[in-house]
Each structure stands twice: as structure tokens, then as C-alpha cells.
């Protein structure tokens, strides 16, 4: 795969493949993920975009308007992997039969509910079969479309509408599912985990690799949700920076089974720095919950060490 030097201005000047006028919230991380992943497509390549049911789908393809400059298919909540498998297979047959000349790429988007939970089986099947497609999870850590219910991607202790913090509850009980690692164990050629960095280079280059590596690829993109997380929409880049500098959201890739760390902060910040600006963790800063922040820190440290060992 060709690697070109990243030029921020050039990349950001590429034509948008997600048109303005969609109905996503101001400051939505999901939208930023979609726009930047689609920028990684070569301009001359065509694409079919898939989408699990979720915020993105109901806001970007409300009949009779579509925000996509490419062909697009939404089927249901739990089957974005299987649906794109069908599209990609059709492409292979029609290409073989000489009915299609153009090059098409296949990219599907799902939120964490549609990816970690209800669409997990369909995703696993698509990855195992090795279709030449990219599954992009825009992970905002809860079922945001239905109003911030807990998913298996929700961080421990988060206050959600189905794990509300209360007098005898400190929010979600369980820790997050490590989906990127699970997909890596499918032995697909490319897995990347990323979020938004100041110049978007990490997301762009990972999307480029995911799209242009032959075979199944998976991208897990932390895509903050200002409404669900409870921070000012304008603060999204700060939130992402804190997520990576506290090592809450490590950025890495797994290329043909080789784990590579993409970013190691010069100074690892305490987890409070990430938790503090978010309403969903507000209850952790009450006197009686102090020890929970310590437990959160322990979990982050443990996973960070595990990841560093994998990357060595």
C-alpha cells in the first residue's frame, strides 16, 4: 500500500463525501469520524457506505434526503457487517462477470451499540470470512440514539439512563469490552483504534490503511458525544486529548497480528483529568466515591501495561 506524507491542509481540502445539511447534533463525534474516514478514500474510487441503525443513520438518511455522496445502504441495527458482506460479494461476482468496471471500496459505520452488542455476531462473521471491507465503529460509549443507555462499550461508573448513579449505585458496574482486541483475535489483516488528534493524522492514516489493505479491517474510533457525556460541544478536542494523555483511550494498530502503539504520552495524566469535565462521572467526585476513581485508575493502568506488552 502506498504511503504518502500527511498534509493536513491538502487532506482537509478534499471534497466532502458526507454533505452538509444532515441532522446530527452540533459537535457530534460520529459525524467527525465519518467525514474523516471518507476523506481517506482516493477521489477516483467509488464506494458503497453501510450503516447500522443509530443516530448517524436516522440523521443522515431521512427520506427523501441522503447526506452521502456515495451509494449507501442501511438495513437494520444488528447487521451492518452481514449487509456489507452481501454488497461486497455482489461486487466480486459482477466484476468477475464483467458487469462492473469501476473500483469500489466498502465502508460501514456502526455505533458501539450496533457494533459491540447487538451487531457483534454479524461483525464477527464478516471479519472471520475476510470480506474486503472496513467496519468503522464510532464509539461514543452508550446507546445515544435512544437516549444514553448503557452498552458494553460504556466505561465503568458512567452514569447512563439505564445505569443511573443513585444513592446505592455508582453507575455502570462492569468495565468496557475490549472490542479492538477481540477483532484482532480474528486474525484480520488490519485493526486500528484511534480518536481525534489535533491534525487528524492518526485517524486519516488508519482509515487509509483500513480501506486499502486487502481483506477485512476494523477501525474503532472514540467519537465523543457532548449530550451523552455532558461536556460543552466546543470542548471535543480537549476531551479527546485527555482521553489519550490519560491512556484511557490508547491509540494503536494491529497489522497482520503485529501490535503497534501509535501514541505514548510524554507525561501520563491522572484519570481524574479525563473524568472531571464530564457530567457522566460527576458522582465520582463526591466524597463517598473517592476510592472509585482509584479503581478506575487501576483499570486504566492495567490495560495500558497489557497493551504496551502486546506492542513490544
Amino acid at each position: 500500500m502506498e504511503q504518502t506524507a500527511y498534509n493536513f491542509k491538502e487532506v482537509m481540502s478534499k471534497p466532502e463525501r458526507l454533505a452538509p445539511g444532515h441532522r446530527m447534533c452540533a459537535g457530534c463525534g460520529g459525524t467527525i469520524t465519518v467525514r474523516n474516514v471518507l476523506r481517506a478514500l482516493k477521489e477516483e474510487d467509488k464506494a458503497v457506505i453501510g450503516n447500522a441503525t443509530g443516530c448517524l443513520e436516522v440523521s443522515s438518511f431521512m427520506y427523501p434526503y441522503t447526506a452521502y455522496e456515495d451509494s449507501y445502504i442501511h438495513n437494520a441495527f444488528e447487521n451492518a457487517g452481514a449487509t456489507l458482506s452481501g454488497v461486497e460479494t455482489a461486487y466480486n461476482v459482477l466484476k468477475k462477470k464483467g458487469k462492473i468496471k469501476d473500483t469500489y471500496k466498502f465502508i460501514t459505520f456502526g455505533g458501539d451499540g450496533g457494533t459491540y452488542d447487538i451487531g457483534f455476531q454479524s461483525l464477527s462473521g464478516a471479519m472471520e470470512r475476510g470480506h474486503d471491507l472496513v467496519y468503522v465503529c464510532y464509539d461514543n460509549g452508550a446507546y445515544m440514539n435512544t437516549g444514553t443507555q448503557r452498552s458494553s462499550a460504556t466505561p465503568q461508573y458512567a452514569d447512563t439512563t439505564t445505569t443511573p448513579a443513585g444513592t446505592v449505585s455508582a453507575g455502570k458496574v462492569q468495565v468496557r469490552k475490549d472490542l479492538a482486541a477481540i477483532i484482532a483475535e480474528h486474525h484480520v489483516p488490519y485493526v486500528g483504534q484511534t480518536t481525534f488528534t489535533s491534525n487528524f493524522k492518526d485517524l486519516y492514516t488508519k482509515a487509509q490503511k483500513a480501506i486499502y489493505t486487502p481483506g477485512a479491517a476494523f477501525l474503532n474510533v472514540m467519537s465523543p458525544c457532548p449530550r451523552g457525556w455532558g461536556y460543552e460541544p466546543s470542548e471535543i478536542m480537549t476531551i479527546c486529548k485527555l482521553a489519550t494523555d490519560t491512556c484511557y483511550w490508547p491509540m494503536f494498530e494491529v497489522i497482520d497480528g503485529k501490535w503497534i502503539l501509535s501514541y505514548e504520552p510524554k507525561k501520563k495524566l491522572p484519570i481524574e483529568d479525563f473524568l472531571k469535565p464530564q457530567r457522566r462521572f460527576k458522582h465520582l467526585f463526591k466524597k463517598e466515591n473517592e476510592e472509585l476513581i482509584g479503581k478506575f485508575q487501576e483499570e486504566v493502568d492495567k490495560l495500558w501495561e497489557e497493551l504496551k506488552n502486546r506492542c513490544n
Partner: protein
Amino acid sequence: MAIRERLSGNEAVAYAIKQINPDVMPAFPITPSTEIPQYVATYIANGEIDTEFIHVESEHSAMSATIGASAAGARALTATSSCGMALMWEELYVAASDRLPIVLALVNRALSGPININADHSDSMGARDSGWIQIYAESNQEVYDNFIQAFPIAENANVHLPVMVCQDGFITSHGVENILLVEDEKVKAFVGEYEPEHYLLNPNEKMAVGPYAVSNYYMETKRAQREAMIAAKQVILDVAKKFEEMTGRKYAFFEEYRMEDAEYAVVIIGSAAGTCKAAIEHIRNTTGKKVGLVKIRVFRPFPEEEIAKALSKVKAIAIMDRSEMFSATGGPLGAEVRAALYQAKCNAEVVNYLYGLGGRDITTDDFETVYANLEKMAQTHEPIGMYEYIGLRTEQAKEAE
């Protein structure tokens, strides 16, 4: 010259698939339809067809991938039974509303529970409101013939609806019978090359499939589906006519068997029609009583007026359902045929029986009891055993006698 063979129903469907050479087949194993994808996989393994098989991890994904492939512009199909179709239920509605000309080879099997692998119609009857055309078969020959007609119906510009080609699990799917196969080149010419108008991979036009449609658009999509279902009636007959020209075998919405002078009629779907025909011959030969049969082939769209017309001259009718719907008043065929008769102001006596659930056999003796009941009902004007089960092993069985 037609080819004489001996095939099971599953083999016959697989053979039709081979002759049609479709583009994409995602499928997941389930008894008793499993053999269909197995045979197709073998054709692929031996380079006999160009079809791409997708080894999906569930039936939900089977229909999801079929939808993806069909929307992309491929001729796509799958096969399943029973709980497999129950798992793809959500997707049946999506396929129909996306107006995709998918064909599903359904081998009818009872739904759990208790778990049971044998024939009844609870799977397809439960999906009767999903927007699919449903075509049923009595024999291996019929399921083969129906399968060849399915794509031309589904892909017709006035239709654009998915088609379910149904046969009875084990009875038809695994029973080996003599069959007349159509020559490959004739099947290929009959089904034709698939040339979709709108599809995801169309180089000249981009397309978006599966929108969010709120209350100001949803209702129109349903109305459009209804219009397609109404239009499908003529297309089904046109395709049958063409098929008859090719093979000499005649198909319609239903088969009328010894109905020309019948006073007592059974209405039934599927393989049990064969048993009923044997009973009719025996009754007519031994007693001269005028008994007949209406065997439904096309249940969706429902040929309401045509069925009422076919039954307009009889004195008493037994509608036989091979699936429960727990309305506590009858089965689905019973409800629809009774509605058709009411609408046509038919005065015949009507009774609705359930039979054959979970593969329970129905015998010629059972049909003779049914016809005897009809004769009594015509005299007394009282239904005998309305909504009773035929062939129960318990004391309840006596109620229908």
C-alpha cells in the same frame, strides 16, 4: 425433450438454482433445508456455477447479506426453514419494503416449541404479512417448477417483491419422486439475464437504500407495496402461461381438482393435497359422491375473488390449516377463505380444521371423515367440529367425528 429424473424436493430446488446460476447465495444450515445450500456448495466446488456462496453465521445474517447483495445489483437468494426464518423475520420486512427481487427457498417446518423438525406451515404463515409473495407446492415437480418461475415474477418491473417458494419439510424436501426437468438452455432463456434498473453498484447513478421514513412518508411506502402485490397477480398468471408454453404444465393461483361438479370441497395447501386427491378418487369410485379439492398455490397475493368463485357452487367446505394462529377461532387459511366467502355472499356451510402440526400424518381415512362431516353439515346446517384438530392421539380427537 424434458429430462426424466428421480429427485427429492431439495435436490430439485438445488438443480433449479444450478440452472439459473444466480450471483450470490448466503445461507445457514437448518434442517430440513440444509441440503439446498449443500448441493449449491458442491456445484460451486466443482466449478459448475458462478454463484458466490456466503457462509454466514446465522439466518439473520443470511437474509441481511442477501439484501445487501440484491441491493448491490446481484441476483440473490437464500434457503431456510422454521426457526431459521423466524430469526430472519425482521429482515423479511426489510427485503419487501426495499422492493428487492430476492427468492427464498423455504422448506416448511414447525416452529419451536417444543422443538420439532417436521412439516407444518407455522413458519411461512407467520410471515404472511411481511410483504413476500408466497407460492406453495404439493410435489417435487411443483416446487421445481415454482422455483423456475420465481425470479421472473420477483424481477418484473411491476412487481419488485421478494418471493418465498415453499415446500413441505421432509414430505416433499426429502421424498424422492419422478420429476421432469427442463433443459438448461430453456431455463436460462426463461429466467433471463438479470438487468436491474436501480442498484448500489450502478456506474451511472448513485443510490441510497433503507431510509428513515417518518410518518409523512411511511404510509405511502406500504401503499406502494400493496400495489405491487396487486400487480403481482397478473404477473404470476403471465409467467405461468409462459411456463406452460415451455413445458405443458399448467399453473394458476390454485388447482381445482374434481371441482367441476363438486358438492363438498376441501381447501388445503401443500403436500397433503396428494392424500386428499387419493381420498377423492376412492370416495367418488366407491360412493359416487361429488367431492373435490381446491389446492392453494399462491397464498400471497391472496386470490380472494377467484377462490370464492371456485367454491361458489358447493354445499359445504372444509378449510384445512397446517398451522395454528391461536386466535382461538381457527387457522390463517380458514380466516382468509371464510372472509372471501363472506364477501362473495356464499351460503355454503364452512368448517375450519387443523391438521398435520409438527409433521403429524394425515391419511385418506381422515379426509373421508372430513367429507362425511361436510355431507352431514349440508343437511343439518351445523358445523361439525369447528376449529378441531384432525388426527389427534387423545380423546379430543373424537370431537371432530
